[in-house]
């Protein structure tokens, strides 16, 4: 289960609507991968001025060439633009699989998978795994426009239902994907939600799910510099099983969190009652237990 660092040859870089899909040979990562986990890649080559690794959810693994992984990204900034320019046989420095995967329900239940834009990519390997275990799957996919809805065909093929919404109405319903959440939950008799989306969307999903008392497992993207847990960039406040809030690392304690433990409204801040916050006074006894890890479970 330990992540590895490999220098893997790129197989292909394909355009997929507004995105690029990059496939790279990395057997040790492909075999260990569990849905929800991610890789980080070094960008820009040996004399790059870009020091920080870029994180991408693994979208697909294949057995060919001993094991390949694919991730899908938008080429916005300099690092992703560089990645979009890779060609077959270029070597890529990849570390993975990283982070806490989506926990799987013990029983076959009805799962709703909600994704938005590129964030959806992480949900497809999850859907495959859930299907293997015999659960019901419904998909909800949202994005700004049709070319940014990722995987609608595959979602339709895989799932019992696939609900789609775009901000401009160019595919599916017009408006935010969360607008149709209540309806889908009712119709699908959802037991459990998996969500992968930007922070504001996750907040809404969690709030709505709360009304129905539905557990949510949320994949959160926080600003990532290392991806291995050493730089403390990717933090957010998370409740421990002891009721104490700690500043946790999304890259090692997440990226998948039990949504009821994340203090969604306080992301980006250090809440006054967090362990070690300014003014916070320690009980001066035994050290506190570790941050919530493995304590979260789905279903």
């Amino acid at each position, binding site marked *: 289960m330990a992540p590895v660092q490999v220098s893997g040859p790129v197989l292909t870089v394909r355009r997929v609507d507004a995105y690029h899909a990059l496939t790279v040979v990395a057997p040790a990562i492909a075999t260990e991968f569990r849905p929800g986990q991610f890789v980080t890649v070094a960008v820009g080559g040996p004399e790059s001025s870009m020091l*920080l690794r870029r994180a991408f959810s693994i979208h697909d693994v294949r057995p060919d060439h001993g094991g390949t992984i694919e991730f899908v990204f938008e080429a916005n900034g300099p690092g992703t633009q560089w990645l979009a320019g890779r060609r077959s046989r270029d070597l890529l420095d990849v570390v993975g699989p990283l982070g806490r995967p989506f926990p799987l329900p013990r029983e076959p239940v009805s799962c709703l998978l909600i994704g938005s834009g590129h964030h959806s990519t992480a949900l497809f390997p999850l859907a495959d795994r859930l299907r293997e275990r015999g659960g019901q799957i419904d998909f909800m996919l949202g994005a700004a426009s049709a070319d940014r809805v990722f995987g609608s065909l595959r979602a339709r093929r895989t799932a019992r239902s696939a609900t789609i919404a775009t901000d401009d109405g160019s595919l599916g319903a017009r408006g935010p994907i969360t607008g149709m959440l209540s309806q889908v939950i009712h119709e699908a008799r959802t037991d459990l939600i998996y969500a992968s989306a930007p922070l504001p969307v996750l907040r809404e999903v969690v709030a709505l799910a709360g009304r129905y008392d539905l557990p949510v497992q949320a994949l959160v993207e926080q600003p990532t510099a290392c991806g291995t847990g050493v730089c403390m960039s990717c933090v957010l406040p998370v409740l421990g099983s002891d009721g104490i809030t700690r500043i946790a690392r999304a890259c090692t304690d997440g990226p998948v969190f039990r949504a009821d433990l994340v203090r969604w409204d306080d992301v980006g801040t250090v809440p006054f009652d967090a362990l070690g916050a300014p003014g916070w006074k320690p009980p001066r006894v035994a050290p506190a237990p570790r941050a919530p890890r493995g304590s979260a479970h789905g279903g």
Partner: protein
Amino acid sequence: MAADLRARLGHVELPSPILTAAGCAGTGRELAQYIDVAKIGAVVTKSIMLDPRAGRPSPRTAETAGGLLSSVGLQGPGIDAFLQRDLAWLLSRGARAVVSIAGSSPGEYAELAVRLSDAAGVTAIELNLSCPNVEGRGRDFASEPDAAAQVVESVRAAARYDIPVIAKLAPDVADIVTVARACTAAGADALSMINTVPGMVIDTTTMRPALAGGAGGLSGPAIRPIAVRSIWRTRQALPEVPIIGIGGVRTGRDALELILAGATLVGVGTVIFHDPSACARIQRELEDELTARNIDRVTDVTGLAHQPTAPALRRPIP
């Protein structure tokens, strides 16, 4: 024959001069997935304070050209949890632990030093002096020779006599040599330099500072020339004082550069974020660089760049 990388820190022999830089290697556990932490020179811990600390709000980091701007705010578990959990783990893996400590008064540093002296297995104590001196005018200890010296003195008096005390200096001072002298006179057994360089990034999308904390510290290869100059000047002024050179080391050649300027040991920080196996790789590369230059022992070249000529060691590499 491969060059001999062994180095010393106080009376402890290290397998190599390559250390992690404080705050850049997590608890050591994270790195142990990629390298054998017992095989590098030592693990320098993040700066430990008396109490747990949540650190700064995020965003905490921003990428810059060849560097990183960061403001983590010394998030950490506090000394109790550190001793029980992190130090114990490092020792169980056979790693040498240099414990970095931080405080807001000389007394706090001293208290931490006492706690570390009671614990077995601490290789050295590094004083992160880039902390606001609340008893003074709120400026960092590192920016005022007297304040820095006071911390060193308190710690030296409180720490077990056989634990080396290392003063870590900041580059944003009128003259780093003055601070170095003050710390050495106050009993520092070695000096670490440099800590991050104050800097700032504005996010042109939000049109606000990129870090929640506004300003931050610049690190990474971008600052290496600043580190080299600090080491060079300190070595020139205080040739007998061991220096842990830190700042932008990315390759074995970079490590060699700092050693030639006067460092006896070399810390690797930001580049670990880029390459989790950096310390092991740099150690290997350093060995190769030395071997290619027909240098037998890394200790032979400390400060060599100060000598006008060193012909025997000066075979240019092809």
